[in-house]
């Protein structure tokens, strides 16, 4: 009998939380917004989302197989990336856009840097930036929700005066009945998903609240009043970015203080890009920029150890 005893170091019990459960929670949280985008943008949305997820999972499997590493698609992290890439694509995009985007996100941004937990940027946002730089017309060809795919402008572009048109009502903005990327249109459903993640303890309040709060404060002060601020909060990818992108574990700080700095930083950059920059939308670039400084933020925000005393030099 003795030979069969396991004598390992403590602790001897583990919580039942797993990586795949966390990823499943993110997928559950994204589900309402996913369904809404299919509702608003019909079959093309469904096709783009399906292709994006399939491409992400396939790329992960092929890459790991080629490198003779264990295939980890069961952890569902590639599904999450695929969903988020699709969320960043306009409904009118051709089928190969999400395929290339997700393949880039998984192969270049995630696996080249060591796979799960090692990507220094949010893969989906990096893919969006790549697609936007490579196919700018396709990536900004916004359509009105509905079957006829009438070309329209995003509320932010109208707000900025870069495009003609009338602003949609705030109710439509909240529900998502506006032009924009697939997943970023319905603020309310994204918020519901975010609340679910907070409730499940997958994310904490620090990054999303400081991020959205910073944007709100700056827009109130410099963005032209309460109504404009409301548009800024509900439009574009702010909710998607704040709850689902900026909170990406591997590309954001792990310290409490660091997360607050990260959220405020992303909020500042978003507001500056939207108010002063050349793009109407600033969420993706502000998060990507903050991703790059996240390790530095972590380094300088190490928590004070319990009972830490100043050493006499």
């Amino acid at each position, binding site marked *: 009998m003795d030979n*069969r005893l396991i004598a390992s170091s403590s602790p001897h019990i583990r919580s039942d939380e797993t990586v795949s459960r966390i990823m499943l929670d993110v997928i559950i949280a994204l589900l309402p917004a996913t369904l809404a985008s299919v509702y608003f943008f019909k079959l093309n949305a469904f096709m783009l989302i399906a292709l994006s997820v399939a491409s992400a999972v396939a790329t992960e499997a092929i890459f790991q197989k080629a490198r003779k590493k264990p295939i980890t698609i069961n952890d569902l992290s590639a599904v999450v990336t695929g969903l988020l890439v699709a969320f960043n694509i306009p409904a009118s995009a051709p089928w190969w856009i999400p395929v290339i985007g997700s393949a880039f996100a998984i192969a270049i941004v995630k696996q080249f840097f060591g796979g799960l937990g090692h990507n220094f940027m949010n893969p989906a946002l990096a893919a969006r930036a790549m697609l936007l730089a490579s196919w700018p017309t396709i990536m900004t060809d916004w359509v009105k929700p509905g079957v006829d795919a009438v070309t329209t402008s995003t509320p932010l572009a109208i707000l900025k005066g870069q495009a003609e048109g009338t602003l949609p009502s705030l109710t439509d903005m909240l529900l998502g009945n506006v032009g924009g990327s697939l997943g970023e249109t319905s603020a309310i459903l994204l918020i519901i998903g975010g609340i679910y993640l907070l409730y499940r303890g997958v994310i904490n309040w620090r990054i999303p609240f400081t991020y959205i709060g910073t944007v709100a404060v700056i827009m109130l002060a410099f963005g032209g009043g309460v109504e404009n601020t409301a548009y800024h909060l509900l439009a574009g990818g702010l909710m998607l970015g704040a709850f689902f992108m900026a909170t990406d*574990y*591997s590309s954001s700080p792990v310290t409490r203080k660091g997360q607050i700095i990260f959220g405020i930083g992303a909020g500042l950059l978003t507001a500056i890009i939207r108010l002063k920059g050349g793009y109407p939308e600033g969420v993706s670039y502000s998060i990507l920029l903050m991703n790059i400084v996240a390790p530095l933020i972590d380094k300088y925000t190490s928590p004070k150890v319990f*009972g830490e005393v100043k050493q006499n030099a």
Partner: protein
Amino acid sequence: MNLKSFTFKGGIHPPHYKRYSEKAEIEKAEEPKVVIIPMQQHIGAPCEPIVKVGDKVKVGQKIGEAKAFVSAPVHSSVSGLVKKVSSMDTPTGSGVMCITIESDGLNEIHENVKPKGDIEKLTKEEIIEIVKEAGITGQGGAGFPTHVKLSPPPDKRIDTVILNGAECEPFLTADHRLMLEHPEKVVYGLRALMKAVGVNKGYIGIENNKPDAISAMVKAAEKDSDIEVISLVAKYPQGDEKRLINAATGRVVPSGGLPMDVGVIVNNVGTAYSIANAIQIGMPLVERIVTVTGSAINTPKNLMVKIGTPFKDIIAQCGGFKEAPGKIIMGGPMMGLAQFTDEVPVIKGTSGILVLNEKEAKIPEPNPCIRCGKCVYICPVNLQPLFISQLSLKGQYDDTQRYHVLDCIECGSCSFVCPSKRPLLQSIKVAKKEVLAKRRKAN
């Protein structure tokens, strides 16, 4: 009872698993036929055997003499014949000098075992001497000789004694049962401790998942206005002494310091019980309460066990194994020591014998760190386990000091919460060992 519950920052909420044994009254274990008594059951220097093969010994007779200050003598728990004085396996290590005694079943008490008188009449020094001679060591797990704690250097002013009845380790119920069944002895032990260090403030800290123990202790301490029972939030590691001090008094023991640095001495409730016995009856520490529990034990129990009784005898008295054992642990599941065999003896620090089945014992396959930060949020010492572990796994032990590796209290909370099942504490322990070894070499 409606006490406000106190606590500390951080920590985790593992399942309690106490229902297996919390209702089981303390039973006297069967008389062991043979006891194996290690000469080292505590932190500090080992004892030297003072009996030889063929000697006849009695219950309470000293058989191992402590030569160093940080050490505690060892006594026989049975009467009978010394069979062997040899190096054997013990729960805390292999190759420890042990005295094997065959019991004659008569339990003849040694003539030195007699009541030491009233604590009111004993002086501080006399109490400390009684504690020392009775071989009393901390019974929460680490096993630090108690008389050393009671002899702080003169520049440390002690004003508070805290008894630790938190029992935050899942599964264990020995302290719980002790407080329910012998609360007056615990209070007596606390009064002796308070007298020994000359303080008039005593606390008994108990987690609020044991309301019956809290009521029992409050009742037992009713007449002592200087003893206060405090309810603690049931959260792991509430029973860590620095967390306990923080919860009870709000004081923060400095990093690298000892409780005495903030004027506090902490002892386990089991230790207080042993001190009461040492004064009232004069019996040294020769038996203790052990929780025998876990999914692979047929009838979980709380047993009063003689020191030196082999684990397998105890397990047999609890109906043996329900299914094939995967892991036998001395202590609780968070900080306990996994054993290679069930032939090791119960020692002074054996708070529990926990047997997990093969499924629970399986070491989970680690996945990559996803940097979720959970280990950072729950660390009761505010460390960043993910970074320390990362450096340790790469062999960069020196760099782990930048992340205060030596402040780790090894509570295991980080490994517990990790969704990737990474060996966080396991690798941090390696780094600690390497850093300390290097420091010793340098000195």
